[in-house]
C-alpha cells in the first residue's frame, strides 16, 4: 500500500527523519507513535507530498509520489489543525471540496452522523473548535479512498463524537481500507489500532502489534510500555 525507503528530511540543522524504511500493507489500522518532535507529522506529510524529502523514495499504491498529484485521489487526509477560510459557510466548503475532488453522496450520511445539519449555514469562522473538527472529519471521510490518514483525529471532540469516530474508523477498516493514525491519546490508540509504528529520533524504533511491544518492553500495559521506551532512551 505505502512503501517508504530510506527517507531523510532535515529542517535547517534539525534532522527530523534519518533513514525511515516502512512498509504498510493493505487493510488494517496503523498507529504512528512517538514523542513530540519525533517526525510523525513530517512522515505523514512526506507521504502526502506536502513536505519534500531530501532523500528517499515513497510509493503509494505502486505509484511514485514524485510523478504527480493524481495519487492523492486515493488518499483521505485529516489535518491536525482544522482552520478553514472564515468567510465560507460549512455547506459551501463541502461543495467546494466536492468540486475539487469529484462528487460523492457519503457526506450526507456523515453530516447526519455528527449532527452537523444545524451548522450547515453557519460561517466557518463562527464555529467552535470541536465543531470545526467534525467538519474536518466529514471532509476527510466523504471520499471513499483506499488510504485514510488521520493526524490527531480526536482533538477537541466530545465523548459522543469520539465514540462515533471510533465506530466510523472501524467501519472503514471493515471495508478493507488502510488507515494511518497519529495520536497522543494512548487509550485511543490501544483501542483502535492493529499495529503500531514507533518513531524515535527520526528512525523507526519499533513496528509490530501492541502485545509484541508489551513483551519486548516487559511492561503489563500499553501506556507503560511506551513510557518505558521513552525513559530508557532519554535517561
Amino acid at each position, binding site marked *: 500500500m505505502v512503501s517508504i525507503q530510506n527517507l531523510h528530511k532535515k529542517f535547517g540543522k534539525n534532522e527530523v527523519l534519518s533513514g525511515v524504511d516502512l512498509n504498510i500493507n493493505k487493510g488494517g489500522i496503523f498507529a504512528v507513535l512517538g514523542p513530540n518532535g519525533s517526525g510523525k507529522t513530517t512522515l505523514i*506529510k512526506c507521504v502526502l507530498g*506536502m*513536505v*519534500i524529502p531530501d532523500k528517499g523514495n515513497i510509493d503509494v499504491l505502486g505509484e511514485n509520489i514524485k510523478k504527480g498529484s493524481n*495519487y492523492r485521489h486515493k488518499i483521505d487526509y485529516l489535518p491536525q489543525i482544522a482552520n478553514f477560510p472564515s*468567510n465560507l459557510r460549512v455547506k459551501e466548503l463541502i461543495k467546494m471540496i466536492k468540486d475539487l475532488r469529484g462528487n460523492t453522496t457519503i457526506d450526507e450520511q456523515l453530516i447526519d452522523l455528527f449532527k452537523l445539519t444545524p451548522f450547515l449555514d453557519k460561517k466557518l469562522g463562527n464555529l467552535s473548535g470541536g465543531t470545526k473538527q467534525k467538519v474536518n472529519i466529514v471532509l476527510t471521510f466523504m471520499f471513499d479512498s483506499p488510504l485514510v490518514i488521520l493526524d490527531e483525529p480526536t482533538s477537541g471532540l466530545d465523548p459522543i463524537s469520539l465514540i462515533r469516530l471510533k465506530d466510523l474508523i472501524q467501519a472503514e477498516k471493515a471495508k478493507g481500507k488502510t488507515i494511518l493514525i497519529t495520536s497522543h491519546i494512548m487509550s485511543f490508540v490501544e483501542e483502535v489500532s492493529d499495529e503500531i509504528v514507533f518513531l524515535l529520533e527520526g528512525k523507526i524504533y519499533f513496528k509490530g502489534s501492541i502485545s509484541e511491544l508489551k513483551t519486548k518492553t516487559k511492561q503489563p500495559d500499553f501506556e507503560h510500555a511506551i513510557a518505558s521506551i521513552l525513559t530508557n532512551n532519554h535517561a
Partner: protein
Amino acid sequence: MLKILKYSFYDLMRSRWSYVYFAFYLLLGIVLLFLNNDLSKAVITLMNVIIVLVPLIGTIFGVMYYYNSKEFTELLLAQPLKRSSIFLGQYLGVALSLSMSLILGLGIPFVFYGLFKSSAIWDFSLLLITGVFLTLIFTALAFNIALSNENKIKGFGYAILLWLFLAIIYDGIFLMTLIMFEDYPLDKLSLFGTMLNPIDLSRTLILLKLDISALLGYTGAVFKQFFGTNFGLVVSFATLVLWVVLPILRIVFKSKKKDF
C-alpha cells in the same frame, strides 16, 4: 487552477476589506471630480494617488492573504491538485479582486460624470491599465516574499520595505545619481533607470500620455521621444509584462520546493 481562482476570488469578494477598498476608490473618484470639476485634471490627481497607493495595497493584501489562508492552503495541498495551480489560483484571486475594486470604484463615478463623451477616456483607460498592472506586479512580489518567509512579522516587514524602496527610496537614489553624474550625458541612463522600476515606469507612461511632458524640460523631451513613440510604448508594456511574469515564475518555482 480556475477552481481555486474562483474560490479565492469569491472568498475575497465577501471579505470586508474588498468593500473598504472599493468604497475608498469610489469616494476618491467622487471627491476628485467634485473638487476639480474637470475630467482631465481629476485624472492627473488620481494618478498621483494610484501610483503610490495601488502598490501599497497590493503588497499588504497579498502578504496578508497568503498568511491568513495558510491552513486552508494546507488543506488544498492534500487534495489531488498541482501546487502551481493552488498558488497561481490564489494569487490571481487576490490580484483580480483588487483590480476589480479599483476599476469599479474609479470607473463608476467617472462614467456617471460623462467619461464616454469626454476626450479623457484614453487617459483614464491608461490609468486603469497601469493600475491593474501595478496590482498584478505587487501582489506577485508580495506572494514571493510571503512564500520565502515563514515568519509573518518578517514577511510584512520585507513587504513594506519593498514598497518603500520602489515607491520612494528608488527615486531618491535615482535623483542623487543624476545630480552626481550631471556632467555626463544621462538621458539613456535615466531612461533605463525609469524602466527598471514599475512605479516610475507607470508614472512616466501616464505623464507623457497626459501631454504635460513639456514640464519635464530637456529630459522630458528625451522621454517623449522614446515613450511617445509606438516603439517606446511597446517596450514599456513589455517591461511591465516582464515585471508580472518573472515574479509569477518564481512563485511557481518556489512553491514546488517548499515544505508545508
